């Protein structure tokens, strides 16, 4: 018998998901994102002007380059619709487009689905996906699930991983 951590229901051995609350029952403890020590931060105000439609017609993808401060890794990719950032975790079938595991993502508190960069009406936005340790744009913590405009030379921080944004 195994017991569901979140609702307490009991299941036969090898059950993968709790049918009561939907929790994954085989998650290994060390793979979870642990909350890091909390610092006092200002939450940026809601920027509600950006909930337009995706600009399907815009033909040219915007290419951006992320330079990760600590590891020195540079990643360049086109954003045609959206790019997710986080940590690959096969056990929960999470495969973000940009995997921060090689940059010590787990130790630095990056969630599996941490943030995304998306494109609406030709502009780029960054959005926190309800991560445990937060996403910061130029030092300000973003309200989860609210996209914020992203500009050339901006600084994004996913938990403790700092990265520079350059539009190519």
């Amino acid at each position, binding site marked *: *018998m195994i017991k569901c951590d979140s609702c307490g229901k009991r*299941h*036969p*051995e*090898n*059950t*993968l*998901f*709790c*049918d*009561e*609350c*939907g929790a*994954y029952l*085989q998650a290994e403890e060390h793979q979870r994102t642990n909350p890091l020590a909390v610092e006092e931060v200002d939450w940026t105000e809601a920027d509600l002007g950006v909930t337009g439609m995706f600009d399907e017609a815009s033909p040219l993808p915007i290419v951006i380059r992320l330079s990760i401060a600590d590891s020195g890794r540079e990643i360049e990719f086109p954003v045609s619709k959206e790019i*997710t950032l986080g940590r690959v975790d*096969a*056990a*929960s*079938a999470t*495969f973000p487009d940009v995997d921060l595991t090689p940059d010590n993502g787990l130790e630095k508190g990056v969630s599996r*689905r941490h943030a995304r960069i998306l494109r609406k009406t030709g502009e780029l936005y960054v959005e926190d*996906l*309800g991560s445990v340790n937060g996403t910061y744009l130029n030092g300000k913590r973003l309200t989860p*699930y609210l996209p914020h405009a992203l500009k050339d030379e901006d600084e994004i921080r996913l938990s403790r991983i700092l990265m520079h944004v350059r539009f190519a």
Partner: protein
Amino acid sequence: MDIQVDLYAVLGLKPHATPDEIKTAYRMLARRLHPDARGESNVDERFLHVQEAYEILSSAEQRQAYDRGREAAGLVSPPALVVDHTLNYTALPRRDEEQVAYALLRIAPHPRIEHKRLPFNLCLVVDHSTSMQGVRLQRVKEAVNTIIDNLEDQDVFSLVTFSDRARVVIEAQPYLDKAAAKTQVRSIHSAGGTEILHGLRSGLTEIRRWRSVDRSSHLVLLTDGQTYGDEEECIAEAQAAGAGQITITTIGIGQDWNDQLMDEIARRSGGTSHYIDSASRVTASFRSCIRSLSTLFARDLILRLHSPEEVRIQKAYRVAPYMESLDLHTGTLSLGYLDIEQPQSLMLQYLVRAQRPGKVNLAELTFEAVVPSLAEREQRVTHRIEIEVVDGLTLSAPPPPHMISVLGKLAIFEMQEKTMQDLADGELEQASHRLETMATRLLSIGENELAKAALLEAGRLSRTGNLSPEGRKRIRYGTRGLSMLSKEVHGDQV
């Protein structure tokens, strides 16, 4: 082993015979041909042949090798259906308590069978009650005209409108005069209330006038309202339609229609139900119905489940092309039709009591289907799922990621079903709590829109004690649509 010899024929059987049939046939023949029984000292050569045939066909491995050899040599036509499976673990540790084993199945048409589209026998049954007035009815008429434009000469087409009464606008007929038909469509006006039964009955009558095995019979029912008092009879009609190989697709438009009734009508007849929130989607929705009719490969697909005593099936779901829980009552699953381009995927959840090391036969699956494009229409394919039981095994590697992803979505789907059950039982607090949990799970897999809808409805439920009709439909049909492309379900490269 000589593949030129038809060992099945030696036993008086067909190539898709089940292991039980093989055993029975062998016993019967052996008893008859045995030298002792015949009272002769010399051995009948037929007896030797029967024994040799049984030796090969009774072993799963040898039988498979023999079948493949004959197929490769072009001696037999390939089976109409190709079935494969993935298990969460291919081996289980020996344990005294029961363990879960998941099998993800894929059922696809054999790639070597050429597909030809059967002519349709199609009836559109359209609600023209007062609530359909204006743009909605206009869009429906345009959609009907698109269908008419795409008909071929051999297709039988009919159109029925209904409100409190039903009217046959276009009688069932092949070689339709398209221009005249469109004039008839123009004559449709909105009036009256909604009584689905009348429309359904008239539509089915039209279809039955032209029923034949050479056409695929289908009824599309579109409504925007609730029907009053005739639900039971509607379901009975749907059941009878299904028994007569007429499938019904239901399309609910807007917010006020009865989703449970629409689902039930579709399910009983082996069809599917759809939800569209805006009239502008009617054309697309009709088109996809027609498309799926043109790509129909097999119909009346059923799966007979059989497992040994130490194994029992717990749950069965269809996971692609859409999610649905399947009724395990009879030990036979009705799977409706199989599309040439879209394989079906099922998830079977078993409980295994693995007390002895060695091979366990998790399941013997027998699929039966009618494949209209083949000379031999009735097809049967068997598939066996085996699992190894090992002493002292530790399961270290995680199950295949695509399997986890499918099961995660099924868990959400199941929560949705439980929420609806809670609501029906008046357990409002429970339902609201479940919706909130569901929203968290939806967010974690990136389904933000659906998560938002679930959260909104959880809030509304605790404030008002009700879901909004729109939110209820969005959640029901949204979770059902969580299933993915078949390629994703099975972890293939997309």
